[in-house]
């Protein structure tokens, strides 16, 4: 009888741990549906043919809601090297998104003039981004062409 009780307890523990593992793996998210992340980006762009070799510094905050909407806050400044005029702005850009396989397709809302000087990516109305978790706090954001930045979520 005692042995039977032990056997039942062991079976229950085994089943519980098995269920836990299955749930953990099933709900493991590469690309989260609901999250926020922040990053700092410094850009030095000397690849344009125009006279402006651009330098910028900006903070990004990205918030994605499960309901297909979200927003990003961009705050920073940009300058053409050798010039005195500095562009400083803070903008909140609302967007809608759909999920297309591994990528999000973001349709950006209204943006302030000059925000594309801080981030070239923001000059397009539709952008495709993939967000992948690399460890508990950090995510890598890539376009279909190349990685663009790493960002950090707040700790759970």
């Amino acid at each position, binding site marked *: 009888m005692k042995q039977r009780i032990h056997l039942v307890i062991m079976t229950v523990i085994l089943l519980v741990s098995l269920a836990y593992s299955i749930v953990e793996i099933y709900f493991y998210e590469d690309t989260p549906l609901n999250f926020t992340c922040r990053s700092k980006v410094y850009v030095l762009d*000397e690849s344009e043919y125009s006279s402006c070799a651009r330098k910028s510094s900006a903070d990004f905050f990205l918030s994605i809601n499960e309901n297909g909407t979200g927003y990003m806050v961009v705050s920073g400044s940009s300058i053409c090297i050798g010039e005195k005029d500095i562009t400083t702005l803070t903008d909140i850009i609302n967007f809608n998104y759909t999920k297309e396989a591994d990528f999000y397709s973001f349709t950006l809302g209204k943006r302030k003039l000059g925000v594309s000087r801080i981030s070239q990516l923001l000059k397009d109305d539709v952008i495709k981004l993939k967000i992948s978790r690399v460890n508990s706090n950090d995510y890598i954001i890539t376009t279909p062409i190349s990685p663009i930045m790493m960002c950090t979520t707040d700790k759970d």
Partner: protein
Amino acid sequence: MIYVINEHLKYDPLSATLYSPEHHPDALTLSRVNNSIFLIFVNKNNELISRSYLLKEIWENQGIDSSNNNLNNHISILRKSLAQCGCDEIIKTIPKKGLMFSANTVRILNRKGEKKTVQDNVRHIGQEPLTPALRQNKFLRSPFAKLTLFTVTVLTILLTPFFYEKIKLFYLRKEILRIEQCRFYVTDHDTKLLSKEDIRSRIDVFMKNKSIDCSRLKANVYFSFMESIDAMGKDKTSQVISYCLYNSSAKCINYKEYHLK
């Protein structure tokens, strides 16, 4: 049936094994000939057996020639096996007469489904079901071993999601070098194609220019590099280096550079 000799040595003629957990952790397997000899001995406990009888029973009845030397070799091996099971001197040599197996007790245990048999010179005592697999390994029979096996199984199951994440990470990023407390990774396939020396030299330049200090804090640094030729035929390079403090909510700092060669 299974024989229990001197209340501690279990002998199974079917699997030709001797098992005495008090003396030897594993079951000892006898050769075919030794198994036949030992079965004769066990069935003739405390009886004098002549060498000629053994030679006839083991070999001659099967049309095989043999010799006393051969028999002596087998008896010697059998004695060694029995000694390992705590039965020294159980086979005695009676000079000029033969051999005698002299055990204090020999019990017969019937397997499940086996009919009880009573044999001459053998005291039949009772039934005790035995599982051969368990009999062969003392360690596996102990409660400690069972508990250990169970704990290991549960831990393995519980750690599976952790390993799953590690494997996914392994495919997502590739560590290329470590400098003090910083670990440098590449994530995209184009950068993975660059040589380690090339990546190293670019990282060295970056570390120097940006005064990155890897001695104080643990950090993961992600490196990406792309080269392309535009429509004018000019080489363009783009480089992204992201510095993320390890296990911290402090935001990652990204350094992006685009150049015309």
